[in-house]
């Protein structure tokens, strides 16, 4: 980011701070969420029903078409060649052999690529989606090791791959900043996240720490991670009459369509992205260079292009999570009351993105402490732009914070759950806002009972079964409720009682279409088979990213707004002969495919009758929900109590997880079947974070060394025990449907729960992830 961008962010941040204060002080009733959504109390209908995924039959038969699975006439295949240096200029690029190779249609390099605008960087403006704002193949400059230097189009993938292997480049290499230690020696920078400094301070935490009778002060480190969705990033795209049409794997269809339109300097509506099925994303399926390169090449060649990155290609041009080095220092009185809470440290980004891993986020609302100091600083390296990965901030931040809480509990001789409960805050410790709903204590109690926590031996290394040491650990999971601005949805009610929902949201496996069909059916008093849910298409209403675990709330709020508009329209259409005559839209609700007076359900008129009398085939409404001011009025967070039983082999040091329980407080659970899968999925990625995942970055060359699934280990079936998940199911009165997101919280707290269990098993405190067997020998 340049100075101007930084200034812009700071101004936005200041404006936001003033706004935040005003909204915090406003009466509840002025704020969205001030009136509870009546649907949150729905007990016997579709809300909370374990409906199987509606797209299940398509997925188990292989008929769901992913981005690379649209065969087009005359289509050509793309392959990329990547730089092998981290910084410098291309001296020469020999493409002669590649051009002559069989089947080759085009070799695109910075010499012949069309002139393109740099893509707007994600978070730099409302609809921006790009992982960085570097120009794409516009000059001879190399910014990271792995940057694309040439694209080949050929008749088959084999031909394209072969031709790419024939490209020869030489470079004028420059000194690259690729060592964290070297960069740190030149100074670190205060990090900002979404326009606000990653810094909070109240009281004098260092002084309180010095005086505290009980304290821990330790450094925790976490490595780089990659998302590794099993579907490779891919596009199938073509230009038609000046319109760029993209079959994509996307978690931000609308943002990405806007971003591509800016790159190619065409009107926004001239880019159409559809992405009905996404083979996993976890933060990685935003806009990266392959989109831009494929679209540019398709325009040059005048033919449809398929570009599916190789697995190595994904590591080269799709960013991952940055490493962190975190200090957590806790001071406490003998009865376990925190007097000092310090969480600070260092992370890494590039000069071309705005994403310092915000690891203090979970600490802001975690514990009551009189003196708090939270701070993130960063250095900038010449590397691929790092990005958001499942629970950015919380996933690694909770590892440090919750490991330290475990260490403090041991020093105090106190049960670690008891220590956490004694520091439960009454209001948000850093913002001062009241909590919208916080039932973490209940999650702890029910979880502890179910897990059998009372059987844990507080002295480490005392339980042994054969050649295995066995231990139990716990940690708090936490993730915020977000609802980002820009939501909108369209409802079309037809005279046969069917409803079509149009909203530009995403299905990466969360169960979006299934759950939103349930919610819409329940809201409109229809059966689920009367709902058609259209999504994954940038031409539909709404700017709703699948990120921040906000999609369910943002979509729910959008459909609720459209429903209010629909009621208004229907009440107006109903006419004087209707039992609803004279009622205001606010006084009516839905049941049995019609509207009724809320407190007098017998005053009822069916949708079919209303439309029939009005001689209307359909009623179509589109609406946007109010801006998400509720997040500035309440402190809104989900929580979980995570319990782990770990086993460590005394001969080999091998760690295994034998049991895991997540006890969650995430508001109302809309579909227990898909929600349980989301919780488990997060926990399993957390087991990977704890025990095996590490993107190895060569600090001599700036190149990722394990750019494949054989060397980057993710949990496999045998690594995954049966994972028990339970939840409070207490609605949050200030969110749509009473629900908060469930997609990311599972990966939070898990790392610490594992590390704490391994400590309890072995007496070895590992503060450096992943906890591999060499650290336990």
């Amino acid at each position, binding site marked *: 980011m340049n100075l101007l961008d930084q200034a812009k962010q700071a101004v936005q941040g200041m404006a936001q701070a003033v706004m935040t204060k005003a909204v915090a002080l406003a009466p509840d009733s002025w704020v969205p969420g001030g009136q509870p959504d009546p649907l949150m109390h729905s007990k016997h209908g579709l809300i909370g029903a374990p409906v*199987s995924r509606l797209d299940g039959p398509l997925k188990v038969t292989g008929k769901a078409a992913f981005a690379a699975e649209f065969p087009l006439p005359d289509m050509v295949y793309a392959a990329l060649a990547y730089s092998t240096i981290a910084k410098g200029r291309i001296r020469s690029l020999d493409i002669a052999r590649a051009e002559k190779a069989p089947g080759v249609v085009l070799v695109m390099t910075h010499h012949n690529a069309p002139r393109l605008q740099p893509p707007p960087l994600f978070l730099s403006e409302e609809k921006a989606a790009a992982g960085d704002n570097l120009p794409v193949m516009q000059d001879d400059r190399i910014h990271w090791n792995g940057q694309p230097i040439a694209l080949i189009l050929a008749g088959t993938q*084999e031909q394209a791959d072969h031709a790419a292997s024939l490209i020869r480049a030489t470079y004028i290499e420059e000194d690259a900043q690729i060592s964290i230690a070297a960069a740190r020696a030149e100074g670190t920078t205060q990090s900002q996240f979404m326009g606000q400094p990653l810094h909070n301070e109240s009281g004098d935490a260092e002084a309180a720490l010095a005086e505290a009778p009980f304290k821990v002060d330790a450094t925790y480190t976490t490595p780089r991670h990659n998302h590794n969705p099993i579907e*490779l990033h891919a596009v199938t795209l073509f230009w038609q009459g000046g319109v760029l049409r993209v079959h994509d794997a996307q978690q931000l269809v609308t943002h990405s369509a806007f971003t591509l339109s800016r790159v190619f300097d065409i009107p926004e509506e001239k880019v159409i992205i559809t992405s009905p099925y996404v083979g996993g994303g976890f933060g990685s399926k935003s806009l990266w260079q392959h989109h831009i390169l494929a679209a540019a090449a398709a325009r040059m060649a005048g033919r449809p292009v398929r570009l599916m990155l190789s697995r190595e290609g994904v590591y080269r041009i799709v960013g991952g999570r940055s490493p962190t080095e975190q200090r957590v220092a806790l001071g406490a009185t003998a009865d376990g009351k925190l007097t000092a809470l310090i969480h600070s440290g260092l992370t890494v980004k590039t000069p071309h993105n705005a994403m310092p891993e915000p690891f203090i986020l979970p600490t802001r609302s975690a514990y009551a402490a009189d003196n708090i100091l939270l701070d993130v600083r960063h250095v900038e390296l010449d590397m691929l732009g790092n990005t958001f990965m499942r629970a950015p901030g919380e996933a690694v931040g909770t590892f440090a914070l919750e490991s330290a809480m475990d260490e403090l509990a041991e020093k105090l001789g106190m049960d670690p759950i008891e220590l956490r409960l004694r520091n439960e805050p009454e209001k948000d410790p850093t913002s001062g806002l009241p909590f919208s709903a916080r039932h973490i204590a209940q999650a702890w109690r029910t979880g502890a009972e179910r897990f059998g926590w009372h059987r844990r031996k507080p002295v480490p290394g005392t339980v042994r079964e054969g050649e295995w040491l066995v231990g139990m650990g716990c940690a708090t999971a936490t993730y915020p409720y977000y609802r980002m601005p820009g939501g909108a949805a369209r409802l079309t009610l037809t005279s046969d009682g069917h409803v079509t929902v149009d909203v530009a949201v995403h299905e990466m496996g969360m169960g979006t279409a299934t759950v939103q069909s349930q919610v819409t059916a329940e809201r409109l008093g229809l059966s689920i088979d009367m709902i058609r849910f259209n999504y994954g298409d940038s031409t539909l209403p709404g700017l709703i990213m699948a990120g921040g675990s906000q999609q369910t709330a943002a979509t729910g709020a959008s459909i609720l707004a459209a429903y209010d508009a629909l009621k208004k329209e229907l009440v107006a259409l109903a006419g004087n002969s209707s039992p609803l005559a004279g009622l205001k839209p606010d006084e009516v609700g839905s049941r049995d495919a019609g509207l009724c007076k809320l407190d007098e359900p017998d005053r009822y008129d069916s949708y079919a009758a209303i439309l029939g009398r009005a001689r209307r085939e359909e009623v179509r409404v589109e609406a946007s929900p109010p801006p998400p001011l509720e997040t500035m009025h309440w402190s809104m967070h989900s929580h979980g109590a995570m319990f782990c039983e770990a086993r460590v082999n005394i001969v080999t040091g091998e760690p295994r997880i034998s*049991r895991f329980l997540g006890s969650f407080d995430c508001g109302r659970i809309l579909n227990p079947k898909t929600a349980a899968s989301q919780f488990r*999925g997060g926990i399993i990625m957390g087991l990977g974070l704890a025990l095996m995942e590490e993107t190895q970055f060569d600090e001599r060359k700036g190149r990722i060394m394990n750019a*494949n699934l054989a060397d980057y280990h993710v949990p496999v079936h045998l690594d995954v025990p049966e994972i028990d998940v339970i939840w409070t199911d207490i609605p949050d009165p200030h969110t749509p449907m009473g629900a908060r997101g469930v997609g990311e919280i599972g990966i939070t707290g898990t790392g610490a729960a594992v590390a704490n269990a391994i400590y309890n098993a072995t007496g070895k405190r590992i503060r450096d992830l992943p906890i591999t067997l060499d650290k336990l020998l």
Partner: protein
Amino acid sequence: MPIIINGAAVSLPDDPRVSLLDLLREYLHLAGTKMGCNQGACGACTVLVDGERIISCLALAVQYEGRAITTVEGLATGGDLHPLQRAFIEHDGFQCGYCTPGQICSAIGMAAELERGLPSHVTADLLLDEILASREELAERMSGNLCRCGAHNGIMDAIAATFIHTETSRSTGPDSAEAAA
């Protein structure tokens, strides 16, 4: 001689570099079989060859002349899903659905291996006539099929419900915790 894909005879590709996976996806447009790495590391491309599971990205199509290949598109009979396909839906054995065809084909091949009494790395007693299909045994045998969404529990439940007729050991919950303590 042609290659038989889901019962239909198909010509072999002219280019000997074409993998069985690319033959399916790019030449026959049978995109149900997925590419997750093209390096034999993820299992998403698993198909059945005469009932045995193989990784189709590491197989050249020309090697399979005259052999019968079954892909995920060939598992349903008539309009009826294979029992394992139904079980995957019932037990939520997937989220994004991308590794799913490979998991399903792999599990069918794996069940046949168990049936034939082939041991695995975790088989404790190699002398027994019948291998106890414990959860650990199933998990070990399915560990070549990666899932990143974290549907592992649902996948195991679906496999156990379809192929294993005795109760497999379930290790979660307060009751089994009592037993383990």
